[in-house]
């Protein structure tokens, strides 16, 4: 049934900026303080107070705009969006209406089948957060905490370019990765630093006209964004298929039941009566300011992905895992400045390093071993000084225990150095052949698969230290000699 319809989805993402102070006043913007301790007369909307623009908010907005390829507005104005609600003491939100700082641009990501997908952005503008209303602690009153009121936000609005819940998931994932790379927001959806609203409609496949749009709010994780959209598409298709009518409305997502319920209809919607904010003068952004900020932008995940797949020859899977987290990617960047075996470096990151982080619920900045030491292990393996197994199963765990320890002394202590000298390996080969004289005959009469058996014995006799390349050559030579 759903197959007959095509969903059309646009997302609005509120990005709470990790500035120290609020957008238009200097009270602290940090999360988790006791209620109503991060407030000021400006936040409280007292008469006679005047707002003041936080320069960092502009920098962060420009950073995000540059990263998304937006057009940056040189002359910025602020606007008042008027509505009355208890968590908004001024009676209006300072935002941008007709002059958003960023217009256009796009977010691109890889879909599951590896294709490049782009979602166009309508705009990104600067605004401020509201306070928090607590409805469930007092039966007769709503409690108001204004710590969050005035905290800086960027609102990113996408074009209705998204066609499935999976694409919405990938879009939000990419935005979250981007704001974390740019270090403008911690991207924590559970704490509300990144919030997503979705505008969803469905239309019969092949038609151009948009269906009736429903806005869904309150999705506090990427998984819930996907669930809410899936539910809403199904609901809308069912209404249409049963001959019903859809209304333009705002619906609330309930994570427990996985459903959406009507919140308020647009008929009774507020008329926000936007007008220019006379308390904040215009902000003119100069080319040199933009260039200064451009120089602060780190390598972004998409660029690193390209570098890893095209220059380093890694798979898209490897590149995706390596770029998922900025600090993880930075460690890899550091590592690959010390070794040229990129594939091996990637395997170390995705294998032993990542397993260690997962097992210890740690982040890469807590990883004890320096990248130079991982590079050293890679070189030891590449030069046949130690076996791969000795590197991963013995040297690496020992270094985790004693990160400061000198690698050479560990090699000696644990006796890990491979024997690659032919003269010292030859006795093992002779012994292995003496152990299985019948197998030697079988081999010589054509059963070449028995080579593995002799190799295994040589490795065992050498205590795992024989360099397999040299040993295998010797075994083969010794066996073939008698043919």
């Amino acid at each position, binding site marked *: 049934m759903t197959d007959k319809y095509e969903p059309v989805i646009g997302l609005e993402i509120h990005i709470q900026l990790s500035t120290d*102070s609020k957008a238009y006043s*200097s*009270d602290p913007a940090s999360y988790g303080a006791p209620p109503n301790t991060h407030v000021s*007369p400006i936040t409280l909307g007292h008469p006679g107070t005047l707002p003041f*623009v*936080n*320069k960092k908010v502009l920098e962060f907005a420009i950073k995000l705009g540059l990263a998304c390829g937006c057009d940056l507005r040189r002359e910025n104005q602020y606007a008042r969006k008027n509505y009355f609600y208890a968590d908004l003491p001024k009676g209006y939100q300072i935002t941008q209406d007709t002059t958003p700082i960023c217009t256009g641009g796009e977010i691109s990501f890889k879909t599951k089948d590896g294709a490049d997908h782009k979602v166009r952005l309508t705009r990104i503008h600067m605004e401020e957060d509201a306070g928090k209303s607590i409805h469930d602690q007092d039966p007769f009153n*709503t409690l108001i905490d204004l710590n969050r009121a005035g905290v800086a936000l960027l609102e990113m609005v996408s074009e209705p370019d998204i066609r499935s819940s999976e694409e919405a998931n990938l879009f939000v994932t990419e935005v979250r990765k981007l704001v974390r790379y740019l270090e403008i927001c911690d991207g924590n959806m559970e704490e509300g630093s990144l919030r997503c609203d979705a505008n969803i409609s469905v239309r019969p496949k092949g038609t151009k006209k948009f269906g009736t749009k429903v806005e869904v709010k309150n999705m506090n994780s990427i998984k819930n964004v996907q669930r809410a959209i899936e539910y809403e598409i199904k609901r809308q298709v069912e209404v249409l298929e049963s001959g019903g009518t859809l209304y333009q409305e705002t619906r609330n997502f309930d994570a427990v039941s996985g459903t959406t319920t009507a919140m308020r209809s647009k008929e009774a919607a507020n008329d926000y009566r936007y007008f220019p904010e006379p308390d904040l003068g215009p902000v003119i952004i100069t080319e040199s300011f933009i260039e200064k900020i451009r120089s602060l932008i780190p390598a972004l995940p998409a660029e690193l992905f390209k570098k890893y797949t095209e220059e380093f020859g890694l798979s898209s899977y490897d590149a995706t895992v390596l770029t998922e987290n900025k600090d993880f990617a930075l460690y890899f960047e550091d590592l690959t400045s010390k070794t040229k075996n990129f594939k091996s470096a990637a395997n170390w990151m995705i294998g032993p390093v990542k397993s260690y982080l997962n097992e210890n619920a740690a982040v890469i900045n807590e990883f004890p071993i320096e990248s130079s030491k991982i590079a050293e292990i890679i070189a030891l393996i590449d030069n046949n000084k130690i076996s791969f197994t000795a590197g991963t199963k013995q040297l690496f765990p020992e270094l985790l225990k004693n990160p400061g320890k000198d690698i050479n002394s560990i090699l000696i202590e644990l006796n890990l150095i491979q024997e690659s000298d032919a003269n010292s390996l030859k006795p093992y080969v002779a012994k292995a052949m003496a152990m299985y004289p019948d197998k030697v005959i079988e081999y010589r009469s054509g059963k070449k698969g028995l080579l593995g058996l002799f190799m295994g014995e040589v490795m065992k006799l050498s205590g795992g230290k024989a360099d397999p390349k040299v040993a295998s050559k010797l075994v083969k030579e010794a066996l073939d000699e008698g043919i």
Partner: protein
Amino acid sequence: MQINDEIIDKLSNLAKLEFNDSEKQEIKADLSRILDFVEKLQQVNTDGVEPLIYMNEDVNVLRTDEAKITISKEEALKNAPLKDSDYFKVPTVLKSGQS
């Protein structure tokens, strides 16, 4: 501009205020007077005149991002008609979430 009951109802809804009938009549008269005054300004020819938004010509009045606590919680709550030791209290509002 004619102020009718419909406009008064819409404005009071937006302002979250309630008026009884006699108050409505008073407000209607007040608003009509205010609008008549503003309409007089409309007679002035403003072709080619940029709208005045700002009272001075300052641009780029920016603040460095430094957090400061200027008042205490007790001071913040001091003027609230309804409060407890931590929160402002308002009559229960149905959850309607604004963004």
